[in-house]
C-alpha cells in the first residue's frame, strides 16, 4: 500500500522532542529527516547551514555531547535526549562567547557562511583538548572548508581562543 501524504502529514507522523540551545521543541516530521532541516526550517535557526549535504564541508556543524557533529547527515531521530548546541546557542551579538569574540577581534570572516563549521569544530576540539598542538588543530580543521579562504585570520582566531580559555 502506498502511504498517502495525508496519512504521513497527519496522525502517522511521529512527534519528536528536541532540546536545542536550552529550549525544548516538539516537531512532527519523518524521523529520517536530517537534523539540519529541522533546525533550519522548523526551528528557523540560522547557525547550521546546508553546504554540501555530504558531511564534507562542515557548514551544518552543531555540538552534541561536546562533539562537533554534521547535522546534514544525522537523522533527527538519532538525536534522542541529547542537547544540541548551534552557533547561536553560544552567545549573542551583544554578549558573544569567547570564541565568537576571538573571531570578531581577528576579523576572521568574509562571507561568513562556513562559520558554524569553523568555530564549533575548533571549540569542540579545544574544550576537550585545551592544550591541543597547532598540528592537532590543523588536523581537525582539515575537514572544514572556507571558500573565501579567510584561513589566516580564522586560524589566528582559534589560537587566540585557545590562549584566552587557558
Amino acid at each position, binding site marked *: 500500500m502506498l*502511504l498517502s501524504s495525508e496519512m504521513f502529514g497527519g496522525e502517522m507522523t511521529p512527534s519528536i522532542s528536541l532540546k536545542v540551545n536550552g529550549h525544548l521543541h516538539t516537531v512532527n516530521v519523518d524521523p529520517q529527516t536530517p537534523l539540519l532541516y529541522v533546525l533550519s*526550517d522548523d526551528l528557523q535557526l540560522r547557525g547550521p547551514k546546508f553546504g554540501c549535504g555530504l558531511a564534507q564541508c562542515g557548514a551544518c556543524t552543531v555540538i552534541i555531547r561536546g562533539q562537533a557533529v554534521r547535522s546534514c547527515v544525522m537523522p533527527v531521530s538519532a538525536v534522542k535526549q541529547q542537547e544540541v548546541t*548551534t552557533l547561536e546557542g553560544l552567545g549573542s551579538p551583544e554578549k558573544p562567547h569567547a570564541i565568537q569574540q576571538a573571531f570578531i577581534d581577528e*576579523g576572521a570572516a568574509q562571507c561568513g*557562511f562556513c562559520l558554524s563549521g569553523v568555530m564549533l569544530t575548533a571549540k569542540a576540539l579545544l574544550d576537550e583538548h585545551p592544550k591541543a598542538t597547532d598540528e592537532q588543530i590543523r*588536523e581537525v580543521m582539515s575537514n572544514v572548508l572556507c571558500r573565501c579562504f*579567510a584561513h589566516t585570520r580564522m586560524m589566528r582566531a582559534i589560537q587566540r581562543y585557545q590562549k584566552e580559555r587557558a
Partner: protein
Amino acid sequence: MKREISRRDFVKASGALVVCFSTAALIEPFAMGQGPFDTHQSHIDPEKLDSWLAIASDGMVTAYTGKCDFGQGMYTVQTQLVAEELCVSINKVKLIQCDTSVTPDQGTTSGSQSTPTNFNTQNLAQAAATARGALVGMAAQRLGASVDQLTIENGVVSAKSGRHVSYDELVAGKHFDISVSSTAKRRSPSEWKVLGKPVPSMDLGALMASTFEFVHNVHVPGMVHGRVVRPPEVGATVADVDEKSVQHVPGVIKVVVRNNFVGVVAERQWQAAQAATDLKVAWKPGPGLPAQKDFYAYMLKQPSREVMLVNSNDVDNKLKSASRVLKATYLHPYQAHGSIGSSCAVADVQEFKATVWSATQSVYPTRHGVSVLTGLPLDNVRVIFVRGSGCYGLNAADTVSYDAALLSQAVHKPVRVQLTRHDEFISENYGAACVIEQQAGLDASGAIAAWDCQTWSASLGGRPGYEKPGNVITGMLAGFDPDTITPRAAAEPTGDLRNGSNAVPSYMAGCVNGKCGGTGSIRSERVLTHAVKSPFFTGPLRSPLRLQNTFAHECFMDEISAYVKTDPVAYRLQHLKETRIIDVVKVAAKTANWDARPSPKPGGARTGTVAGRGIACVAYEGDNGYAALVGEVEVDQESGRVQVSRFVVAHDCGPISNPEGLRNQIEGGLLQGTSRALGEEITWDDRKVTSIDWRSYNTLPLGIQVPVIESVLIDRPAAEATGAGETAITLAAAAIGNAIFDATGARIREVPFTPDRVKAALSRG
C-alpha cells in the same frame, strides 16, 4: 518577518520624508552613465539625489546602492563612504543594497567595478557629496552665516557664532528634490575621518552569533520547498517524466516540467529532496563530450571568434630577425566557483506579480530574466538581494533564482529552492578553460624585441544580463538559447587599447593607431584572442581570463629571464614603463628581501625538499589596480607536493578606502589563488562532469599550513579609486609556478600544479 516592504514602507519606517516611488509610477525615461557596465532605465532615476539618500527625522541617513556585499566588504566600505561625505559616524548610516524596488539600477556588482563606480566622482559618492553641499547651503540660510564659516560634526552644522542646526532639522518635512551635482566637491583624502581607516566589517557580530540573515535563511509565510532535477549528462533532454514515481513520497505538491526543466515541490525540504532523488525521468542522451585528455588540442581546432587587441604588423619580421625565439604554451582548466553553501533562492510568484529573494550579483538583470521566464511584466517583478555564501563571480545564484521562480509559478506558493552540491557542481558557469601560446624574439643584448601572443578561451552562456536567461542552465532548460560563439576573423584593432582581460602582457607598449595604452616598452607586439564554443556553461570566476592570461604572461616572462640568465625582477623592470606597476614590483621585491639573481637557484639538490622564490605582477585590466607578488615555496621532489611558505604582495588601488577590508581581500584572494593553482580542476568523462563534490574537486581546507602573508598597501590619495578584490588572486599561480622553477629548475605550464604534474615536470627536468 514582514516581507512585503515597498520603498514607501522603508521611508515610513525610517521616518524620512522623501519622495515615494512605486513600480506603478514610472518617471520619465533617462539615459545613464554608469561606467563600463550596461544598465537599463528603471523607475529610480540615478540623476536624482533622493534615489540615493534620505535623512530621517532621527538624523539617520539611509543610503541606497546598487552594489552589494557578498563578503567582499562592500557594505562596510560604502557605509564609510556615505558617513565620510556627510560627516556623520558610520552608525548613523543605514545602507540598503540592491533591491529593484528601492535602489538605482547599477547593473551587476562585479568585475572589480564597485569601487571605481561608487567611490570616484559619480553615483553614490557624488550623491553623498551633493547631499552635504545641499545641507550646508540650507544651514547657511537658517543660521545666517556664509557657507565657508560653517563646520559640520556628526550631522550638526555649526556657525562661528555658536548657533547650530542638525540635518534632521534642516530636512524636516522635505525631500531633497534636487539632481546629483556633477560639481559637488568630494571630501579630499587629506580630510578623511572615516574613509581610509581600518574599519572592521560591520557584520562581524551578527555573523559570529548567527543572527545574520543569508538568503538560505529567508522564510516567507506559506513557503514550500523545491528541488530541481538536472540532466545527469551534459546536453541530455527530457524524454519522459514519470510523475507517479514520487507518489509514495509524502508532502509532494507537484512535479514541474517545462521543456527540459524538471523540478519537484513539496511541503518540506526533506520531502522535496526525496522526491527529486526518486523521480523517474527518462533522458535522451546528449551529444557526448570531447575527451578531457585532449581537450586543449580540441580547443585549438574549433572555429573561433577572433579579436586582435594589438598588432604592430612587424612581429613576424622581428621574430625572423631575432637572435633567438622562445616559445611556450600554457594551459588552464575549467574551475568552479564552488561556493561553500550551494546556491539558494526564494520566489513568490503570484498571478500578477513576483518577488524573488536572491543572492544574485545583478538584481536588475535578474528581474528581466524572471520577467521573461514567468511572462509577468517587468514592473511587476521585484528582486531583492539577500547575501548568499561567497560567490566569486557568476555562481549558481542566478540560475537558482530562476528555478525558484519557475517552481513558485507552477504551484502558486512561495518556494524555496536550494541546489544540491551535485546540482551546483555539474551545471554552474565555470571559469573558462584557456590555452595561451607565447613566442618572443630576443635581440642580441637579450632584451625582448618582439612578443607574439595568442589565447583561446572556451565560452558558453555567461551572465544572463537583461536579455539572455538561457546563459545559465535553468534558462536554457526552459527553452532559451545561451550566447554561443559566432566564428569571425579578427579585424585590425581600432580605438583605444582594450586590455580588460589582461590578454596583452604588461610588458607590451600596447600601441593602437599610434596611441600606446600599455604599461610596457615592447613595441613589436601582437595579441590575438580566440573564443571557442565550450561544451560546458562558462561565466566570470574571480579574475576571469585575467588570471589565466597573467599566469601565462608572467611565467613566460620568467622563462625568458631565465634563458638570458637575468634576475627576473630586473628583467621585468627593464621592460616596464608605467610608474605604478614599476613601483609595486620594486616594493614587493624590497619587502621580500628579494635575492637578486637568475633562476633557477644555483646548487639546488635534485632530491628532497627544495625552496625557491618567484615574482609576478599585473596592471589589473590594464589600469584597474596594480600588484606584484613574491611567492616562496618548498617543493618535495619525491612526492611532488608544493607548499607555499610566504607571500609578499605590494598593492596599489589608488586611495585606500578601508585598509582592513583590503587586507582581508588580499589574504583571501592569495589563498584562493593558491588553491586554484595547486588543485582545482573540473573533470569529466565522455558524457558527464565527474567533479561533483568536495572529494572529487580539490580545495585547500582550513587545516593547511597557511603561508605567512605580508601585504604592503601603497596609498595613492590623488589617484582614482580602482578595484581591489581580484588583483592579488590574479598573481598566485604565476608566482607559485615561477617559484617552483626557481627551486627545482622544472617549468610547469599547466594549472593545477598537482603532485603528479610537478613530478612529471621534474622528470622532464
